[in-house]
């Protein structure tokens, strides 16, 4: 197949990928969008085979490896519980990154096949492009591995910081630029390996100081990186499908990071430089312990809800940890049978990745038109009888609106305290991720329900 014809087909698959993202603008069109994505991928792969036109023994091996990878992927996709989506996505990012590194290495070792010149004498532009692809790919890989380990709980979710961290990172970033420059002028393969090694290192160092609740930003950022890595390789291979996709994914991840940062009222650099709350923690925990708290049990909660006419449920990461979403939906069903209006309020940074809560609620068969975003529902709290906060904390803290001293001041929060009464399911009074006390605990109209989220919800159902 001629290069021109195959380029047109790559363009078509690029367009199909755009349509795949476009489909996600509403749940009705989303499944069709996903189909477009699959179609685009099939076209891209088929065209590549036809373009190479080499159906020798190597082709069989390609198919075999494709099937091996494919079955592993399919197996994971069907087995993974929905609560594990954040770590799955982080893991997948690491694969994209590593694949980019491998393709770059292969292109470096064997530039002739990609029309990039000969080994030791690669075209300058191609060398720069593949260096960028390899470096960004390596950063994506090691960064995503750390994110994966943190989300899985294998590694501590709290920030790991040490003295001189920022200086070290800055030095490494500068050295990456120098190594790339030297690599381009000498074409030395040793420098290429050094570049990749140093990039792995910086990816690792960039993510370790970032804490668990900042993961939505990190995952989105790594999503963006994986796109830029793919685009870099796309330039090397002169492949428009790869360039278009890389640009789409890159900007998609960047927008998600932006939305997540806005949801926390923090600048991107503030998150990336890490260690949120580490400095404020000591101040926040002092002098507030002795305030009175009203605590109740499932019976009290059930009584309050039975007499309500409307309930807003505010889910957070704690619900995901306790896997309480199914119990929660059962509770909502029971309430609805008693003609109580139920809706859900989801904060943009609730959970560990963008849209985390929505997926879990969808898994529990909560219809998506009962689930609302912060801006859509925030005014309704004033007219609602009961706000049921389950596993969320910082995103409901009124301090963000009142106390300019607070580290979360200015963060958009759900106006939970405006509802007639607040039920707050939590295991203990411990402060949330930001390390600050939640004023809501001590409000007159708040009833604390100290228990595991799932168990408490089930107990409430029994009492309804």
């Amino acid at each position, binding site marked *: 197949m001629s290069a021109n014809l195959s380029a047109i087909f790559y363009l078509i698959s690029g367009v199909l990928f755009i349509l795949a993202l476009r489909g996600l603008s509403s*749940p009705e069109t989303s499944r069709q969008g996903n189909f477009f994505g699959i179609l685009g991928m099939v076209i891209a792969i088929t065209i590549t085979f036809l373009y190479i036109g080499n159906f020798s023994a190597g082709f069989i091996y390609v198919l075999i490896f494709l099937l091996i990878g494919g079955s592993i992927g399919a197996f994971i996709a069907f087995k993974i519980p929905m609560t594990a989506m954040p770590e799955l996505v982080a893991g997948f990012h690491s694969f994209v990154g590593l694949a980019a590194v*491998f393709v770059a290495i292969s292109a470096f070792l064997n530039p002739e096949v990609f029309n990039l010149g000969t080994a030791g004498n690669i075209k300058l532009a191609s060398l720069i492009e593949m260096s960028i692809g390899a470096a960004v790919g390596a950063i994506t890989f090691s960064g995503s591995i750390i994110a994966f380990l943190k989300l899985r709980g294998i590694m501590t979710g709290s920030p790991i910081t040490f003295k001189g961290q920022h200086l070290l990172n800055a030095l490494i970033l500068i050295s990456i630029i120098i190594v790339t420059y030297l690599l381009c002028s000498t074409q030395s393969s040793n420098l290429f390996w050094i570049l990749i090694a140093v990039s792995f290192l910086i990816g690792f160092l960039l993510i370790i100081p970032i804490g668990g609740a900042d993961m939505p930003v990190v995952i989105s950022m790594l999503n963006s990186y994986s796109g830029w890595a793919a685009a870099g390789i796309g330039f090397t291979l002169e492949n428009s499908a*790869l360039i278009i996709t890389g640009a789409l994914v890159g900007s*998609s991840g960047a927008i998600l990071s932006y939305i997540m940062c806005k949801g926390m009222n923090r600048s991107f650099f503030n998150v990336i430089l890490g260690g949120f709350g580490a400095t404020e923690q000591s101040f926040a925990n002092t002098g507030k312990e002795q305030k009175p708290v009203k605590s109740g049990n499932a019976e009290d909660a059930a009584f309050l809800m039975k007499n309500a006419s409307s309930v807003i449920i505010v889910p957070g990461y704690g619900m995901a940890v306790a896997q309480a979403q199914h119990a929660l939906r059962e509770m909502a069903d029971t309430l609805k049978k008693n003609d109580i209006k139920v809706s859900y309020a989801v904060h943009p940074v609730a959970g560990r990745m963008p849209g985390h809560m929505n997926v879990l609620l969808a898994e529990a068969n909560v219809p998506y038109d009962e689930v609302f975003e912060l801006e859509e529902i925030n005014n309704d709290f004033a007219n609602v009888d009961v706000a049921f906060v389950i596993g969320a904390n910082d995103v409901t803290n009124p301090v963000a609106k009142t106390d300019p001293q607070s580290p979360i001041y200015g963060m958009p929060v759900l106006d939970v305290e405006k509802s007639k009464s607040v039920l707050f399911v939590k295991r203990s009074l411990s402060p949330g991720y930001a390390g600050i006390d939640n004023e809501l605990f001590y409000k007159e109209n708040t009833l604390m329900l100290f228990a595991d989220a799932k168990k408490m919800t089930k107990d409430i159902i029994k009492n309804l």
Partner: protein
Amino acid sequence: MEIDPFIFRLSIFILSIFIGYYVVWSVTPSLHTPLMSVTNAISSVIIVGAIIASLAGNSENIFDTANLFGFLAIILAAINIFGGFLVTQRMLQMYKKKKKDK
């Protein structure tokens, strides 16, 4: 003077960033998780490069170093393609409206 093909690729790249920007802003926030998994799947179109890399070179030695990296990249990208699209499909199946419920 003739325009370097690189400039055309750069144009595609820049324009695609803008397309991405507007398309992604129109994605409803409740579908942000599927958005991430589907972008994951489509960025694995990098498999195109992996296939070229693994079929490169002389056919006597299928497994020289450069090809080997290509094969490894194929496995990784294939995991992502199948895993990414299927898990997205699985998630999207769950987003339903009220209707037949209860």
